[in-house]
């Protein structure tokens, strides 16, 4: 599916539902061939953003350009986007073949060509054996592949994924996630916007991640950037687990304004003998997590939540109620706004 790569530009997007502002003055540029995940809690506006790009939601103000063409006001059927719905939205009264062929029929493609392209698309998702079946006879994962083939066969400028993995059970989710990644590698020119609430999707799949909060951009960057240098406490807390400690613990950044804290990931914390740690506290909870052991330690005197520590397996684990010291490398500490 060779095609000129199309980027997406969104400018000053504001969407209101009645008195409520769902998206306010959002600017976003997606490079051709980029995989962007949009992450956030329910109600943060991420689905509205996707629906605006697809053409189902009207904006109060703002512009949308795809591949340089202004599509702000184009109706959905004139946008040439592939949209994968949360529950797949396969047409129940049509066979798998007719579902995938639908978009080509709408474009007036000749019957012989339709057959060829549908079969190719179904081969791409390894569903070529199910041509004649009605979608209801397929499992959830198979339905999703058909929906993906249906969205890809029209050679869309951008592929939009709406919570693509949320309807699958945990085991299947991991393997489909891997497949999506492989698919993106096979179609390097295809820009993909993927809306999800699962941070793991964002970490595994995306070139860049857009974390949204209350209709605004909380942070936009590569998943590593979001993890290693979160802009504020919200980003740090949403994207992975985090401990927030007073700046006074790190001399290098001590003296900053009171509305900042330092952020440390659980795997950056280490246990130390009593008297040898930066912080001391009492072990309040121990959870076995398979690859690591999660320890909660209530710090003495420091007004903070219990500190989470991920201990690699094999290290000595203190007992619940034991007192312990905690250390961390000062260069790991990231200053975040509250």
């Amino acid at each position: 599916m060779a095609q000129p790569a199309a980027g997406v530009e969104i400018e000053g997007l504001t969407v209101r539902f009645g008195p409520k502002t769902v998206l306010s003055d959002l600017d976003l540029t997606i490079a051709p061939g980029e995989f962007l995940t949009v992450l956030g809690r329910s109600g943060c506006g991420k689905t509205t953003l996707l629906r605006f790009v697809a053409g189902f939601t009207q904006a109060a103000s703002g512009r949308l350009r795809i591949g340089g063409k202004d599509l702000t006001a184009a109706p959905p059927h004139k946008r040439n986007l592939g949209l994968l719905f949360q529950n797949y939205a396969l047409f129940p009264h049509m066979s798998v073949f007719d579902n995938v062929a639908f978009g080509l029929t709408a474009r007036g493609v000749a019957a012989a060509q339709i057959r060829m392209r549908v079969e190719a698309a179904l081969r791409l998702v390894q569903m070529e054996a199910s041509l004649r079946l009605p979608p209801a006879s397929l499992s959830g994962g198979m339905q999703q592949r058909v929906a993906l083939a249906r969205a890809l066969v029209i050679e869309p400028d951008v592929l939009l994924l709406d919570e693509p993995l949320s309807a699958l059970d945990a085991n299947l989710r991991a393997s489909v996630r891997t497949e999506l990644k492989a698919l993106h590698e096979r179609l390097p020119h295809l820009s993909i916007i993927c809306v999800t609430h699962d941070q793991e999707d964002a970490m595994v799949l995306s070139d860049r991640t857009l974390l949204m909060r209350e209709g605004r951009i909380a942070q936009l960057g590569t998943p590593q950037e979001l993890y290693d240098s979160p802009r504020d406490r919200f980003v740090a807390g949403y994207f992975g687990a985090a401990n927030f400690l007073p700046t006074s613990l790190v001399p290098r950044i001590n003296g900053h304004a009171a509305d900042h804290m330092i952020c440390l990931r659980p795997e950056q914390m280490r246990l130390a003998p009593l008297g040898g740690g930066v912080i001391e506290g009492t072990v309040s909870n121990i959870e076995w997590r398979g690859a690591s052991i999660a320890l909660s330690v209530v710090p003495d005197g420091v007004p903070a939540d219990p500190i989470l520590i991920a201990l690699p397996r094999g290290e000595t684990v203190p007992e619940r109620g034991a007192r312990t010291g905690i250390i961390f490398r000062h260069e790991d500490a990231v200053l975040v706004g509250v």
Partner: protein
Amino acid sequence: MLADRTRHWRLLAAAIATLACAWLFILPVATVLLSSFAKRWGGTVLPTTLTLRWFERLGADDWSALATSLEVAAAVAVLGTVLGLWLALTLEERGRERGGALLDLLVMVPNGIPSVVLGLGILIAYHDVPPGFSDSGLIVLAAQLALVLPFCYRSAASALRRELVVLREAASSLGAPPAMVLRRIVLPQMAPAIRSSLAIAFAISIGELGATMTVYPPGFATAPVLILGEVERGYYLPASALSVLLLGCALLVLIGIALPWGRALAWSRTGRPSPAAKLASQ
């Protein structure tokens, strides 16, 4: 002990339900059916001699009334269903806000007003205005159409579920213009609702009395109007014969509407469904 008691209750409930069912539904129909074949019914508990004479004696009036009833009912069913679909799709597009809810309420108004009052309104509004309207069957059609509109609208609107909205969005995201979405997605998906709309409009129209009696012009009496006239004059058995014919025709049409035409058509386009497909679609 407890299970035993529930079982008794169950049996009692079954008995009461069966009796009520027989009393409410079967007895009236059976009575009309039996009387239409009775030589006479009076002085004896049940008729003693059966005959076809009441059917043979049906006159030109009766047959033309029956024909009028069927024609009007067919027109009301088709028009009501089309208008109901149009209303439902329009109001859904509009959404609940900005007058949508108000319009929804207004469409349902004929459900709340007496058929005689609605008929009177139609009569007053149109008895003189367009020539050839009030003295033809069209005024009967208009009155009955107003009466069935809420039922047709309701069945269409209840089929426009959330899933259907998603399917329509999927179709338009795949590049289908609105007309194609309507033809290939909305109408096939709404087939059951369209059937029930056709059926209820047809059935209501076939038995409609109040509005029809108020508006019908000479020569356009429907079968119920004739039946009622005969009952009031005491010609019970001829009235039964005409009623049986009316109910029989209605039943045939309703069965016709319920037959699975749609699925046969849908699959003939895509080829034969496999056994698995058949299983899954059940």
